[in-house]
Each structure stands twice: as structure tokens, then as C-alpha cells.
């Protein structure tokens, strides 16, 4: 049985190019395809030389890979973006309020809007964060919200990445690459700038400095090290912000403050933009085997002597089980309906839902509640009978570990191939910066694209690529 599905293409409609793409399309038509192919190869060489790579876990032979870059931009009109921006801002605000509530009075649990059991059984919930408010009240300094589109006006949030979202370096590098490859394009089409992101990130982190910070806040980026899959991004962001990139063993506690080992001795650190997971942050409090964190940092944190961005314990808000409650969470804290819709989600922990999911596995996408990166998920329509049967057993064994969603008809944007333009499915991850009094969202974000024809999995670890994302000035 093959279902003929039609997908919303963001570039072309029956009546020709959609409005945001009109100028681009006429430029594209005037281009020589051979020259574009050369440009595309040039871009790949540029990425290799400059070392814009990511590491893939479990692939020893191909330790560092490029994320393929496609030269056709993904274009959003100004009006489309304004709506997305408002929606993301609302959601990010609600997530911060939710986290503050969860770790303090827990009104939302008492009101029965979110079941308390979901929190009690959640590994991402950190009791060590109870009755404590992070500096400036900010939990999620950086959020990457995954958004998919299915129609002209149909945007859905697929996931809230509230822990340590990655990918922003590709947003910045993709724009730089496009500017280098096609400078003339940017003089013809006015695109909103994303290049202020590093400056804004630094300002946002500095604005969240701890109460006991004296003088100008000293910010560092904490990385697990060069073997981490996102190391390139860590060093890129530190470099672009003009701050130091440190590892756990560079830090220690000196006189009740976190300090970094420099060639002139130890220097106090005020803000840590950490790219290590909660479990590795403090071996005294969490995983005792961790070599990546700083022993005792949680005590310093609770004493108001350091800012950790994002705060420990924010993962509870981007859990896929919590996700299904997000529209209620938004309403509970903002008093408004959610501007961005959720994808319909079946919680397999609930018997009726589980039955429905088991009966419809071939049509659904099933995800692990705590999974990420496209690992451990089932894409029903793309899976073989054997894969579905195997997954059915896993699901029955631990139903609470899974949620299921309908297979979305993700929108497509064309990619450049030797045979011309070819539609491929995309998603979008805008990046929001949260400071105590301001939320700043870079116009656009990271567009990930499934390069295989028909594929719906856009993750870079699964063969996805990226595109430059344009938000038009007007």
C-alpha cells in the first residue's frame, strides 16, 4: 500500500514561487548550474579547511564529519517570522516560569495541571535545585525550539530544547558562507542579520551574573573537551564572544568562588556557559565518576557566587512527556492561549493511548521520553515489518518510556542537486536568549534538512544537512 501524500512546499505553489521566494527564484533562474555546483564544492572545502565539523558517536573511522550544507536558503517572510518569534518568546517565558514554580512552590502540580508523578519519576528533575532561584531568575539562558511546518499557516513546536541546545554555530557559519558565495544576492534581497548573536549571547550571560559578582562579569564557556560532538561549536562561540573556553580541570574553588587557572594564577569566574550535561557538572553532587565538571560547584551556585547557564535541572521542561502538557503550561503561567501549537501527542503511559499506539504503529512516530538526536525512535511509515515488531516489544516492556505522534507532513524546501532543485523535508530551530529583563531571538535560526528523498529525519547524526535561514526585512 502506498499512500500518495502531498507536502507543503515553501518555495513553489501551483501559482508559481511563493511570495518570500520570488526574488530568489528569479535570481536562481539566471544562474549557471555548473557554476553553482562549483560553489557548492568550494563551500565544502571551506568547511573542511576551517574545521567546521562534528564528531559522531560510535563511528571510529569517520571521527569528524561535515554537516552537509545546501546552498538554497530557506526563506521566511517578515510576517511569518513575527508570529514565530512571538510564539517562541511566549513559550520560553512559560518554560522559565514553569521551572521556577517546579523548584519552588509547585503550584502547577497542586493545581493538577501537570501530574506530580511525572516530576517525581523524572531523572531530569534535580531536588538539589529546590527552594533556590538562579541569578536574575533565569533558568534557560539559551533555548532552541524545534519547529515544523505543515502548511501556509501551520507551525508546530516539535520539541523544546531547554538544556544545552546546539547548532547555533551553523546558523552563523551558514550565513557567512552564503555571504562569501553569493554577495550579490544579499544586495538584491534584504535579509535580517544574525551576526549579532555572539554579542547578544555575551551580553545576555553578563546580565545574568550572580549577586556576589564584583566588577565586570567574567564569562567562560565550559566544554567537555575536543572529543565532544559539538566541540567545534563550543570553541567557535567562545572565540566569537571573546571569552575563554575551559574544561572542568581548568576550574577549581578558591575562597568560595569558582576560579580558572590562568598563566598568572587563579582568576574568579562569574558566569559559566556550560556545555556539559547536568549529571557531569558536579561529581560531589551528581555523577561521582565525572571528570568533566567542578567538584563542589553546586554549593557555590546555591551561595549566589556563580551563574550556571543553563541552570541545572532545566531538562525537566524539555522532557518529551512534559511536552504534551506544554499548551496547558503556557496557559497556566501566561494566561494566554499558546501561539504555537503542539503536535498531537499520545502518552504511552496511559493505557488507552498505549492501545491506540500499538494498533497504529505503522503510521506513528514513536520517541523515547528522554531520547535525543533521532536515536531510539521509530518512524512507522519508513520502518520495516520486522523493525515495527521489535519496537512493539520494547514499547510493551516500558510504555512510560515512550510517546507517539502522528507522522507529520513536514514542509519541503528545495535543495540543490546536479539535476536541479529537488524538494526535501525541513525543520527549524530558532535560538532564544533569555536575560533577566529581556528575551532576544535571532531572526531565523537553524534549518535542518533531510537530504534523502522522502526522509523525515533531519538530525545531523542521521544524515541531515543544513541551510541558511533567511528572514526578510520586509
Amino acid at each position, binding site marked *: 500500500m502506498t499512500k500518495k501524500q502531498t507536502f507543503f512546499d515553501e518555495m513553489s505553489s501551483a501559482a508559481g514561487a511563493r511570495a518570500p521566494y520570488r526574488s530568489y527564484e528569479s535570481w536562481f533562474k539566471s544562474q549557471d548550474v555548473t557554476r553553482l555546483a562549483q560553489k557548492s564544492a568550494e563551500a565544502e572545502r571551506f568547511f573542511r579547511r*576551517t574545521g567546521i565539523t562534528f564528531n559522531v558517536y560510535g563511528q571510529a573511522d569517520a571521527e569528524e564529519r561535515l554537516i552537509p550544507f545546501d546552498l538554497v536558503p530557506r526563506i521566511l517572510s517578515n510576517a511569518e517570522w513575527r508570529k514565530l518569534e512571538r510564539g517562541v518568546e511566549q513559550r520560553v517565558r512559560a518554560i522559565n516560569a514553569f521551572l521556577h514554580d517546579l523548584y519552588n512552590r509547585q503550584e502547577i502540580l497542586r493545581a493538577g495541571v501537570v501530574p506530580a508523578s511525572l516530576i517525581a519519576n523524572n531523572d531530569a528533575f534535580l531536588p538539589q535545585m529546590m527552594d533556590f532561584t538562579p541569578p536574575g531568575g533565569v533558568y534557560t539562558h539559551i533555548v532552541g525550539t524545534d519547529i515544523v511546518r505543515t502548511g501556509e499557516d501551520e507551525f508546530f513546536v516539535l520539541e523544546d530544547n531547554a538544556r544545552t541546545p546546539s547548532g547555533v554555530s551553523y546558523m552563523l557559519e551558514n550565513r557567512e558562507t552564503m555571504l562569501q558565495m553569493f554577495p550579490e544576492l544579499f544586495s538584491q534581497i534584504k535579509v535580517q542579520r544574525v551576526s549579532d548573536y555572539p554579542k547578544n549571547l555575551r551580553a545576555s550571560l553578563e546580565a545574568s551574573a550572580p549577586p556576589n559578582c564584583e566588577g565586570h562579569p567574567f564569562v567562560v564557556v565550559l566544554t567537555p573537551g575536543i572529543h565532544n560532538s559539538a566541540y567545534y561549536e563550543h570553541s567557535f562561540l567562545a572565540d566569537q564572544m571573546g571569552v575563554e*573556553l575551559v574544561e572542568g*580541570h581548568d576550574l577549581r574553588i578558591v575562597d568560595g568562588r569558582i576560579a*580558572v*587557572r*590562568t*598563566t598568572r594564577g587563579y582568576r574568579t569566574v562569574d558566569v559559566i556557559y556550560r556545555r556539559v550535561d547536568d549529571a557531569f557538572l558536579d561529581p560531589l553532587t551528581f555523577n561521582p565518576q565525572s571528570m568533566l565538571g567542578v567538584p563542589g560547584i553546586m554549593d557555590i551556585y546555591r551561595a549566589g557566587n556563580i551563574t550556571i547557564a543553563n541552570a541545572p535541572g532545566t531538562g525537566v521542561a524539555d522532557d518529551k512527556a512534559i511536552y504534551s502538557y506544554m499548551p496547558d503550561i503556557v496557559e497556566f503561567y501566561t494566561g494566554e492561549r499558546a501561539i504555537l501549537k503542539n503536535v498531537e501527542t499520545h502518552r504511552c503511559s496511559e493505557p488507552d493511548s498505549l492501545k491506540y499506539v500499538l494498533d497504529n504503529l505503522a503510521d506513528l512516530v514513536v520517541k523515547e521520553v528522554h531520547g535525543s538526536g533521532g536515536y531510539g525512535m521509530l518512524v512507522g511509515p519508513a520502518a520495516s515489518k520486522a523493525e515495527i515488531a521489535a519496537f512493539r516489544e520494547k514499547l510493551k516492556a516500558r510504555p512510560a518510556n515512550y510517546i507517539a505522534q502522528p507522522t507529520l507532513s513536514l514542509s519541503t524546501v528545495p535543495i540543490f542537486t546536479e539535476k536541479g532543485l529537488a524538494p526535501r523535508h525541513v525543520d527549524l530551530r530558532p535560538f532564544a536568549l533569555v536575560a533577566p529583563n529581556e528575551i532576544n531571538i535571532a531572526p531565523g535560526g537553524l534549518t535542518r534538512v533531510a537530504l534523502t528523498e522522502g526522509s523525515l529525519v533531519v538530525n545531523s547524526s542521521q544524515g541531515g544537512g543544513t541551510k541558511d535561514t533567511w528572514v526578510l526585512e520586509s
Partner: protein
Amino acid sequence: MLGKTAGGLYWMFRGLERAENTARLIEAGFRIALTRSTDPASDWRSVIVTSAQQAAFEAKYDAYTSQNVSNFLLREPSNPSSVLSVIKTARDNARLVRTALTTEVWVAVNETWMVLTDLLKETVPDPELPQALEAIRQQSALVRGALYGTMLRNDVYNFCRLGTFIERADSTARIIDVKYHALLPSPSYVGSKLDNVQWEMVLRSVSAHRSFRHAVQDDYNASNITEFLILDPRFPRSLAFCAKRITENLSELRNEYGGESESLDAALAFHARIKDRDINSIFEEGLHEYISQAILDIAAIGTRIEAQYRFIN
């Protein structure tokens, strides 16, 4: 700057220097085995001995052939000093200290790693060895040029240069130490065939056969070669030259940071042991003893730099 960053820069440039020195050494061996020798195995053995890796080599290979030696020194992953290993380490260090490097330096190092990984992915056949060695030297020159042309002259730069000159001084001293028996003036050797081959090998392994002729204007003899390698401040691989640069880089760091500098004191003492000497007094002291002490001094300066600038803790 971070102590770890200073350490990363220092070791990155030690690695790059080591790769270049290894390439020079193989080049010397290759040239001599090819053109001068009646016993190539012994010439290749001498290359391994000079690189101070005889035991490791013999554990892995049973014959001193050009292929075995070039594989071991260029490509062997289990040899931490093989060109491929040190370039990989240097590039890892460059990634570690990425924020301290200009894009040009980073790209030069990254490209060096890409070019050499590709070039050395299989055994290099003898006829292609000269081009491969040339590529290694060219890539080092590229990194050096990027460093020289684009980096601020601050602590970052000084740590890079210290890595280069500590490694180079150590390398030159070790070459002299291994060959000291050939460099000792002894009437029975003078003019013999063996003598000339040995001396040429020494000069070639520090790429000095040409500069020596220009600078010394005299025929090879044990005393003037040794003097050139240890005492000549014009030759960029001599101990005198390296010691001078080390004291300069450490002085600049002290000026930038203020206060006392233990490593500068050690470097000044080391430089004094070189610049005020003449070669005869070194022979009187004993060349082997003198060079052994120099190797220890260089290592001690390195250790002091690491401690003073908190590379580790």
C-alpha cells in the same frame, strides 16, 4: 590566558617542530643511503639511533630498510613521535587552543593535518619519499609563516615560540649526543671515508650542509662542525641560537607579567653555558658530558615553564 591554553600552544609547536626535524632526519638518511653508502642498512640504523628510538623500532621490525624506517618515523600510529602522530597531537592541541589562534594559523595547522594524513595514509614508496618530506617541510613553513605574519606579539606568541625552540634545542643536542663519537677530534679518523659520511649525515639532519659551507668557509672537520652546531649564533638550529631565543621569549613573558621568573633564570644560566664558551674548552670538558648536561638543562627549563605558567595545575 588559561594555563591549559599556554600548555596547548607550547606542545602544539613542539609537535610541529618535531615533525619537521623527523623529516630532515629521514632526508639525511635517504640521501646518504642512496648516494654514498655501501651499507644502507647501517645508515638507516643510524637514522633510528639518532631519533633515539632503537628499542621501539626493533620491537616492531626485523630489518633496517628504507621502507621500515620511513614507515616507523612517518606513519606508525604506535610511535608517538611519528610525523603522523605528532601532527595529529598538534592539531588536537590547536583545536584545544582554537580561541588563542588567528584563523590563518588554525587553518594552516588544520590543512597540514589534512594534507599529511592523506599523504601518509599508505607506505610512501622510495621514489616518492623526497616529495613527501618536502611536503612536511612546506607545511611547517606554512604554519610558521602564518604565525609570524598574523599573530599578536604577546604571551600567546611567546608560548608558541618557546615550544619551537625548546624542541629544536633538544633535537640538535640529541643529534650531537648520538654522533659525539664521530664528532670527537681523533687523528685516526681524519680524512677517512667513514668520517666524512658521518659528518655529512650530521649536517644534513639539521639541514646545515649548505649553511655550513657559507658560514664556515672551511672544510668539514670535527671541531668546526661541532662549533657550528653548538656555538654559532647565526645558525637557527644551533644551541646558541635556540638558547638566545628562549631567553628572549621568557624575558618578554616576564616583562608582560611582571615579577620573578624562575624559568628565565634557568634559561639565562643555560645560555651563559653556551655563549661564553669556545669549542676547545668544551672538548676538554668532554663533549658527551657537556651535551648530556645541555639536554638536562633544556628539559629543566621546560619543566619550569610548565610549572610557572600553570600548564597543568
